[in-house]
């Protein structure tokens, strides 16, 4: 077992445990914190995949922004959720069964597919894979359209979120 594999396994365990806590933690805020751990683990996985840019972006976007957003949202809606009682609804058992079945099916398929175990990393990493990304994003023959559409998507999300989330009844918040 190489060093990488050891690291991978450790991180994988961390991620999965954290994910489990995310979906089961009784306190919402704890769920959010566990999510942070899980996402940090994913960042390490990205490093192992030699995509450091995404590892860093993962930290910046998920931990620095999305997690913060979640925590804010949790805090804002806290009054409603006094963490009493079960956090799971009535489908939980059914859901667990379904999920385990899906996982089993997927794993079985993956293991039965030879490629997944034998396929090796395809050659050396390009010297500037990040620049490749930049070029691909702006290449009219590449992903120009998604690139621009992404900006519009973000704009739409921003406008929509502001429109929806704006506090139209003033004086509700205390501070």
């Amino acid at each position, binding site marked *: 077992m190489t060093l990488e594999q050891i690291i991978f396994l450790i991180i994988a365990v961390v991620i999965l445990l954290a994910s489990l806590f995310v979906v089961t933690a009784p306190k919402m805020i704890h769920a959010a914190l566990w999510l942070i751990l899980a996402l940090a683990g994913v960042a390490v996985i990205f490093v192992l995949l*030699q995509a450091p840019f995404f590892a860093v972006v993962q930290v910046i976007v998920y931990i620095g922004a999305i997690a913060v957003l979640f925590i804010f949202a949790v805090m804002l809606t806290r009054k409603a959720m006094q963490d009493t009682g079960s956090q799971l609804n009535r489908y939980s058992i059914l859901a667990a069964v379904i999920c385990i079945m899906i996982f089993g099916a997927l794993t079985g398929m993956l293991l039965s597919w030879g490629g997944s175990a034998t396929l090796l990393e395809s050659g050396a990493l390009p010297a500037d894979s990040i620049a490749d990304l930049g070029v691909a994003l702006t290449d009219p023959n590449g992903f120009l359209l998604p690139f621009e559409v992404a900006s519009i998507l973000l704009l739409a999300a921003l406008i929509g979120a502001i429109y929806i989330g704006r506090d139209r009844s003033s004086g509700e918040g205390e501070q």
Partner: protein
Amino acid sequence: MNMVWFYIGIFLIVSLGLPAVAIFLASLLAPKKPSALKSTIYECGLETEGETWVQFKAQYYLIALIFLVFDIEIIFLYPWAVAFDRLGLFAVLEGLLFITILAGGLIYAWKKGAFEWA
């Protein structure tokens, strides 16, 4: 895996470990005389009143929201900047268009008073 990231990992672990060790050592050194009064929550010397968890302004959420959108922008723009030499003028203009569109969001937020902290 690239070795440098291994070092980064070590570095980060040490970085986090150092304060942890320091605090641990300090807690060994420090006196421990807990009392109920000491561990009450500090509120200007008054007794705690009302819920501990008050509700906060939605403004915070809006700020985080705008921040998120602009944070996403960097995923696009950093590769764009790194690849600058390989981009044609057209591609640069596209990048600027991208920025402009997002700036539109900023202006919208501005006009909707998301930044008015009244």
